[in-house]
């Protein structure tokens, strides 16, 4: 049973890289690792998934109480609780993915140092795992949305588009953080604070517009934050067609350009720094 493989041609080996070994292998690995990780977390234990729901729901409960009963911010808005929940769920995705990504490459040291593993799979798999989680949480949000009597509109179809933008942003931030952490270990601490700041710099607790924040200057500043643009647009598309759109909040569509520029800058920086560092990660660990 002598099997002689057909002669393959000599091809140059380029060394480790972000993608390493072709697109198909990259996506196969990414998918497999994320699915396995997701299954392990949520199907291994009976309450696994319930636990993952508890955190955003608890936060939601506390904030809802504080803001509607104590501070009475959102009481003017009929959909404030749903808006709050949707915002929290979206932000939880961003936060969970990026926070897990920070230490991911270093945590996978064994794999990085001893196998020809496409480096980018590692932070991206934390994003994808968080995305699965996000998907499940969105089901709960949908239940709330319908229970609060929000009317479905055609603009719901635009929601996935917003989520794709959110996903790209999350992936880019994750890649940057994971690769910086290899060099600078205080990134983890910085990011804990950074994520917290972003939470407040995004209109989640306080709706924009005259029933909410009602402060055009601050709203303009907030629209520098790509997350804020996404979240506000989702609010318009999904819950309140009459709420100020991102462009309105920024004071004109042109004023959204800085946010777009920031978004593009983050993505470009992510590609650049990951490509630059990927070949050397194994040595720097």
């Amino acid at each position, binding site marked *: 049973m002598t099997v002689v493989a057909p002669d393959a041609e000599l091809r140059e*080996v380029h*060394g480790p890289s972000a993608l390493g070994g072709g697109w*198909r292998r990259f996506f196969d*690995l990414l998918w497999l*690792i994320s699915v*396995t990780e997701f299954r392990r977390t949520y199907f291994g234990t009976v309450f696994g998934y319930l636990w993952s729901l508890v955190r955003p729901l608890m936060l939601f409960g506390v904030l809802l109480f504080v803001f509607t009963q104590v501070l009475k911010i959102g009481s003017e808005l009929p959909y404030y609780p749903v808006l709050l929940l949707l915002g929290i769920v979206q932000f939880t995705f961003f936060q969970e993915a990026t926070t897990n990504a920070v230490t991911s490459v270093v945590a996978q040291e064994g794999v990085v140092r001893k196998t020809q593993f496409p480096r980018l799979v590692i932070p991206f798999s934390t994003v994808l795992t968080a995305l699965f989680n996000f998907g499940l949480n969105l089901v709960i949000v949908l239940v709330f949305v319908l229970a609060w009597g929000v009317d479905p509109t055609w603009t719901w179809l635009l929601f996935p588009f917003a989520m794709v933008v959110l996903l790209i942003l999350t992936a880019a931030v994750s890649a940057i953080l994971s690769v910086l952490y290899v060099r600078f270990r205080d*990134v983890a601490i910085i990011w804990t604070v950074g994520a917290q700041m972003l939470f407040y710099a995004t209109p989640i607790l306080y709706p924009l517009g005259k029933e909410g924040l009602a402060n055009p200057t601050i709203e303009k500043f907030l629209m520098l934050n790509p997350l804020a643009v996404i979240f506000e647009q989702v609010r318009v598309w999904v819950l309140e067609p009459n709420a100020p759109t991102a462009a309105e909040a920024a004071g004109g569509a042109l004023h959204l350009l800085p946010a777009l520029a920031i978004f593009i800058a983050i993505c470009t920086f992510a590609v650049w720094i990951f490509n630059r560092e990927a070949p050397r990660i194994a040595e720097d660990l």
Partner: protein
Amino acid sequence: MSVDKATSNQPQTGVRSPAPQPGDPLAIQVEDLRKTFRIPTHRVDSFKERLVRPFSAPDFRELKALDGVSFDVRKGEFFGIVGRNGSGKSTLLKILASIYRADAGTIRMAGRLAPFIELGVGFNVELTARENVVLNGVMMGLTPRETRRRLDAVIEFAELEEFAELKLKNYSSGMLVRLAFSVMLEADADVLLIDEVLAVGDAAFQQKCADAFHEMKERGKTIVLVTHEMSTVEAYCHRAMLIDGGKIRQLGDPAETGREYLKLNFERGVETGEATGGAEGARLLDCWLVDGAGERTTTVEQGEKIRLRAEVEVEREASGLGVGFVLANADGLGLFEFGTPVTAADGSATIPAGEKVLVEAELENPLAPGRHFVHCGVQSDRGGGVYLYVHNALDFVVFGSAQTKGIVTIEHEIEASVEPKGGEER
């Protein structure tokens, strides 16, 4: 994945398949590979430190791990790479495996490569064997579908059918190794890069590895093996390369490379103080085994006599000189110590400086199959004279098919008979 049973009991020496000829296609082509590591003397690993000292460039010293290495490996060739720790061989392997990037030079490779830098590194202990096998397969470049199709064969070869759904953290190390090896065979890559994996596992597993390597050779796979173990190189490799200080020191016949490697070991062994004790005064020039015909060997068949040779140079006049050896097994357990006094040609007990002493010993061989070591000591009778001790002066493999749980085979008589019936129960 059927291992040809007929081959499994053969001694593993001399199974070298015909060497690929110069006209055969190349599998790996390496040209002028260079790699320098910058080792920071003070590591800056936080933004804080960067901010505190923004303009002071971090100090580092340069370490040339590879300094212009070029070689070709032909398709179907079993190629050995040997070298001491820190010689650059692991760096070379990691560059070949796309784990490190070379500073300069090119590598070209034909077909799919599967690196095995260590058995089972890609494993996640929180996952089951099944999940790990799929993950590893994809990592080797198979599609998930292909991997799932081969899953059962892998688990079966590893003899782990009952434990397929068990998380790896609950596996014994033996089970892990079996699984890892099985995964590696199943990857079915064209070029295999293997680092020291033969050194793991018990005798039975080593035998299985040996069989598997034999089969891979038959199937025309190209194998690059990095090892310390000269016996493996001599038994399998068509060609071997010795790396020292990031450069190729010897490339060609495995036996030749093996001798060069031993020489290198001894040169350094004394220099770097692997020989303990301040007053040496003697040098172990060489230590080797010979077979029945007097030829050098690194393997001994089970039960066959061990013929040990050593050459010692006396550097300082010594009286009452003795040479001794300790035979140890792979676990480092000393099994047997033996030695002899050395007398000069004229019968006097004083050996003048500059003399060379040849030691010839012949031992019965009750050793179980596996790797063994010989430590060598030279000492004069009164302190302050000569004292030399070389740990692992020689390592060799006892091969054979008789599996045993012990470390030695002891001459014995044993008989079992069925008691005659009808006797009263006692």
